[in-house]
């Protein structure tokens, strides 16, 4: 019986020729990641157990992105603890304010992660790097602490759902609509403990930004990881960027999948997830125009803070004004994306439109800072979760969407179809 792409990467990292679903293995890791919220807990564990050194100072990434630039004294103290740790152990990939970006936008861009890697991160959206053809999954701080010491983690080898993509996306329909559509089909636990393996002729038409967005939200279906095959788009993205040699793994022809779901990209419409679960999806046609009045728009996050996301927002907002009752907050994923937006004139478009254009931060996505919602307020957000209280007050509401829907909605003040201006 053949192996899935995920199984082949796990087998290679466990020094085994063959693994099967359900098998417990110990894998060597290429990258261990933490952020300013999860790393302090891991560092406390690391120090408590008397560890003398990290397994490899080149293979640990620490990104200060959630509550930065420090939102309060406690956040400052957490960053200080991580900064001291990074100094003490000479951690190569430590990213602080000025260099940092949102971790899952930053690490692919900086070439810290790439094809064939096995990666764990103390952040649930670590599954993003599956877009590059890596096995990558979120864990907690204790696993991060152990992995910083040993360079290893144990895994139960997952079975997989194959998601076969055919066709190609229409204008103003993006990777975000693909993943929201899929989560709407299978539910927030539809892929629990399993891999989502994206395959099929439609993959080639998806940009790397679309793939990163899709893999990013695999966790919102409960998946252990999401993964894309490595093709010319991946290799072009990694060229002059990835710090190591790409290792290309492909699923066997006779790989076994629990089930296969076919998605015709050409048929997808802009899709919105209603409060309070990412599975509560409706197409923009089902939402209707001028039905849902909003108070805030957030365009950014590890899901949608990349170049193509800001590009489509700029295209829609150019020479227009954000509705008077709407606060529109646009946050680039990294410093390099920020610079690109400045050079392309997008930053000026955003400011002229009446939006704010911020330094990179996870900020509002998790209700940290930079755009908290009050009682009864509604936001359209390109982030990944719309749980109760996620962005502020427990009686606020989050509607998840693509950057195109979010930008179009910012202009009208209602959830709006970007394809029908």
């Amino acid at each position, binding site marked *: 019986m053949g192996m899935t792409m995920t199984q082949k990467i796990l087998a290679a990292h466990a020094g085994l020729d063959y693994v099967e679903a359900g098998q417990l293995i110990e894998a060597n890791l290429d990258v261990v990641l933490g952020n300013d919220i999860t790393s302090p807990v891991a560092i406390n564990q690391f120090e408590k157990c008397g560890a003398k050194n990290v397994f490899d100072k080149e293979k640990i990434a620490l990104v200060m992105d959630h509550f930065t630039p420090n939102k309060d004294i406690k956040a400052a103290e957490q960053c200080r603890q991580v900064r001291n740790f990074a100094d003490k152990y000479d951690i190569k990939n430590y990213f602080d304010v000025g260099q940092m970006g949102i971790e899952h936008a930053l690490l692919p861009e900086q070439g810290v992660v790439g094809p064939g890697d096995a990666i764990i991160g103390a952040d649930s959206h670590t599954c993003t790097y599956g877009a590059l053809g890596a096995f990558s999954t979120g864990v907690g701080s*204790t696993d991060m602490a152990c992995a910083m010491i040993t360079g290893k983690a144990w895994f139960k080898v997952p079975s997989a759902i194959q998601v076969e993509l055919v066709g190609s996306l229409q204008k103003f329909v993006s990777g975000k609509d693909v993943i929201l559509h899929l989560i709407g089909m299978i539910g927030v636990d539809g892929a629990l403990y399993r891999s989502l393996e994206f395959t099929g002729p439609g993959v080639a038409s998806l940009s790397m930004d679309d793939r990163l967005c899709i893999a990013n939200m695999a966790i919102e279906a409960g998946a252990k990881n999401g993964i894309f095959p490595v093709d010319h788009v991946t290799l072009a993205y990694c060229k002059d960027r990835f710090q190591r040699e790409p290792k290309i793994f492909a699923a066997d022809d006779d790989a076994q999948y629990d089930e296969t779901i076919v998605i015709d990209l050409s048929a997808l419409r802009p899709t919105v997830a209603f409060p309070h679960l990412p599975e509560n999806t409706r197409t923009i046609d089902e939402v209707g125009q001028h039905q849902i009045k909003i108070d805030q728009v957030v365009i950014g996050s590890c899901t949608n803070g990349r170049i193509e996301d800001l590009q489509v927002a700029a295209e829609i907002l150019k020479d227009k004004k954000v509705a008077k009752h709407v606060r529109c907050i646009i946050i680039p994923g990294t410093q390099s994306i920020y610079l690109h937006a400045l050079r392309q004139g997008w930053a000026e478009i955003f400011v002229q439109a009446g939006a704010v254009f911020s330094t990179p931060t996870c900020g509002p996505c998790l209700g940290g800072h930079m755009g908290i919602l009050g009682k009864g307020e509604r936001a359209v957000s390109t982030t990944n979760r719309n749980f109760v209280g996620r962005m502020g007050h427990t009686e606020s509401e989050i509607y998840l969407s693509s950057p195109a829907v979010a930008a179009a909605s910012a202009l009208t003040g209602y959830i709006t179809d970007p394809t029908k201006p």
Partner: protein
Amino acid sequence: MNAHGIVHKYGDNVDTDVIIPARYLNTASHAELASHCMEDIDKDFVNKVKEGDIIVANKNFGCGSSREHAPIAIKASGISCVIASTFARIFYRNSINIGLAILECDEAARNIQDGDEVSVDFDTGVITNITTGKTYCAQPFPPFIQNIITKGGLMNSIQK
């Protein structure tokens, strides 16, 4: 190893944001996290929870973020065990790693009610609803997982 306490019952998809809202993630203090446990789903939880109590919930408990602060807050609030139909995978792994006992048992999760008195035998996986007299059988922990939980977490269990 056993647990025994009064049940606090919740529904499907209890996410880590309601278990411990991100606005409190600027601390790693267990006591401080416990003081906000379940705040956005059950404001009264911290006032009514007693040492040894048990949380019972339906499917996909702990979905969302990887924050270990979520099982830490639950454990530090005095909860001795969480029983659910299913758990989100990162929460499941984190709970064992920090020494919070958790059991998957759909039948128990569906039938046990808020306020019931329940006991759990971790050696056999038997869950007893003392209030109704009904028993349910969960998969017991293998010895190495029991060892992690008894020692108070993965790091303690690997320390010599």
